[in-house]
């Protein structure tokens, strides 16, 4: 939990980025898988069992209202975990506790223990700025800054002093945009405002902006709910690619999306974590009756 960690992971990224062509090839092979298969994919990769994030008896209160009623959950390194559940079940709230975005909400209180790499993220000594540099976030509505495309992506690295010089910064921006699959579309207009892009491009720009900081974990709060199916497909493809390097936690209302992109799925219901299992199991033989009721569309 110090700045050296960030720089190390940045170096690591660069190594990966040198294998760019291979990377893009792979994503193209992947290209057809998004056409809606409701049946879950078989596990895409060997899941690690190294615990990245761990919640123990986590409670979240908004004033007197208990939004999360004691959750125990381990999230493994480099897995994609999807949070599903009906509206108001607390999945977004729980997502936001992981990078302490809940801090910005008045009257929000978290008890219990949530750790990132075995460090309690609610430790009063922890600097929330460092935490958010390690745990990036992509929001429901694309929210690029009203600045140029370049500045949008360069903002994070500049903020944290991750670029040695101008050329280094340009490289980071290009690599981030490449990883977000946006480079080819915007390389000739990096100086135009990011707000002038289409919705799907804006969301990919936001993802590029997030990965430019080289976080270890990316939180996505319904990243496709404001997008059309084609843009959604591109983002989902991107999530699959990113899972090679990042731990991804995604909240979604679309069960098809959860089935398509995630390794494991967690079902939330009224502030409780009902079930967490491999995505395949959740969608074929869920352990819990509520989960089954939800995924078969009886409510929610």
């Amino acid at each position, binding site marked *: 939990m110090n700045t050296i960690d960030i720089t190390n992971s940045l170096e690591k990224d660069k190594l990966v980025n040198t294998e760019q062509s291979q990377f893009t090839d792979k994503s193209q092979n992947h290209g057809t898988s998004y056409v809606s298969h409701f049946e879950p994919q078989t596990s895409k990769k060997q899941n690690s069992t190294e615990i990245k994030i761990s919640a123990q008896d986590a409670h979240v209160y908004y004033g007197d209202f208990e939004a999360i009623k004691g959750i125990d959950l381990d999230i493994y390194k480099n897995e994609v975990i999807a949070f599903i559940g009906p509206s108001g079940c607390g999945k977004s709230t729980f997502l936001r506790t992981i*990078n302490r*975005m809940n801090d*910005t909400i*008045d009257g929000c209180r978290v008890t219990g223990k949530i750790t990132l790499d075995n460090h309690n993220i609610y430790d009063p000594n922890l600097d929330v*700025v*460092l*935490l*958010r*540099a390690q745990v*990036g*976030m992509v*929001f429901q*509505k694309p*929210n*690029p*800054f*009203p600045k140029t495309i370049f500045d949008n992506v360069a*903002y*994070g690295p500049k*903020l*944290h002093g991750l670029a040695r010089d101008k050329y280094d910064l340009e490289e980071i921006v290009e690599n981030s945009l490449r990883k977000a699959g946006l480079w080819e579309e915007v390389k000739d207009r990096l100086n135009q405002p990011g*707000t002038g892009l289409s919705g799907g491009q804006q969301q990919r720009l*936001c993802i590029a*902006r*997030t990965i430019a*900081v080289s976080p270890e974990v990316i939180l996505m709060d319904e990243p496709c709910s404001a997008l059309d199916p084609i843009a959604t497909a591109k983002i989902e493809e991107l999530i699959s690619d990113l899972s090679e390097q990042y731990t991804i936690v995604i909240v979604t209302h679309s069960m098809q999306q959860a089935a398509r992109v995630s390794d494991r799925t967690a079902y939330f219901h009224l502030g409780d974590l009902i079930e967490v299992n491999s995505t395949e199991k959740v969608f074929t033989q869920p352990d819990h009756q509520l989960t089954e009721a939800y995924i078969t569309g009886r409510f929610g």
Partner: protein
Amino acid sequence: MSTSNTSSPMDQNVFDPKAAAESRERRKQVIQKSLAKRHRKEKAFRYAGLSAVVIGLAFVALLFSSILAKGLPAFWQTSMNVPIYFDPKVIDAGPVPVRTQGETPAHYQERYVDWQTKMGMVDWDGIIVNGMIAKDPALANERDYLSSLYASSEAYRLRDMVFADPSLIGKKENINFLGDANVDVWLKGNIDRSLPDDQQQLEPEVRKLADELKAKGVLENTFNLNLFKNPDSRSSPAISGLAGAFMGSLFMMLIVIIIAIPIGVASAIYLEEFAPKNIVTDIIEVNINNLAAVPSIVFGLLGAAIFIGWMHLPLSAPLVGGLVLSLMTLPTVIITTRASLKAVPPSIRQAALGLGASKFQTIFHHVLPLALPGIMTGSIIGVAHALGETAPLLLIGMSAFVASIPTTPFDQSTALPVQVYLWQGNELRNFFEGRTAAAIIVLLALMIGLNSLAIWLRKKFEVRW
């Protein structure tokens, strides 16, 4: 439909096309009937709104046309161009004293003051009158009345010219003289010409003379730059101008800009973004809103008590006026700044925070630039409001008659709106009515300029997302 056959409301399930058509027709008629009423209401509302706008505009047009009709002629004033011969025989004060070798400064000073006194006693009016006769020899018969035609202070102006440049003595020069205020009133028809002699300001001979000279073109109506160059004057109303009040207002605006805007914007940012939401900040917020509604004259009392009574700052000074107006403007700046900070979409804050920007960075990199147009607009409108404020200035001595142009914020001064107030109460009513309207025009022009600047800034810096 088939699945809900069992439910009771669907008993008459037999489909009757005729009945269905009838019910459709009935429904249509019901809607059509209500439609007429709805459209009538909408139309009535639209006409009411339109007539409100028209009435409002009519009042504005009336205001502007009456002010312009009264004020514009005051920008032009009766004057005459006279060839002046600085006659050494009349200006008989001798040459300018030159300090001789070995003379003590005190002695030289004495000689110089002597010379000045002699110069002051020179018959300057005679020089002007001679000049007028030189221009039109027929005037020689009217010698006694000629000095009533020009403003009384013009003789002093001539004297000051020679003080400034003694080499003028013996030279000839064409000089513009402003007509006397009463002559101006008479020639512009601002006084009833049929009034009997005992109610006229001017003697009958002077009135006749003025009409003649006007017809001959000796007295002309020329653009009056003095209005912008001179301070107020009571002894010679014709030369009174706005320069003193304008500088006073300018100094006050600068003080308001230097004090109210930074403090207001900073406190708004703190209150909106950093301050914890608790009872203390709630009380502060309520009180700021209350302050915005406090009558401005109360701020004048406060200023008189604190800045003058306690801190002993000078009376009638733009410094004190600026401080009082700053206090008055602060709540406006704070409220508008907070409103524009609130208007920045929360998604931008979240984006920055999510990237690991600190609160300070989020606010200064993203929120503030987006709120800037609103902040500037609010500040400029606050300053424009302060520019037009009169009441608090009356209480700190800025309604005094000041016949000099202030050079620092510590000098005595009036302000533009106060000048309007002073002139409209002047006893030489029919002359100062035009002056008052002219001052209002200048004030309004400044206001409109400031407001246009606000609109332009908002348009220029507005970011669309």
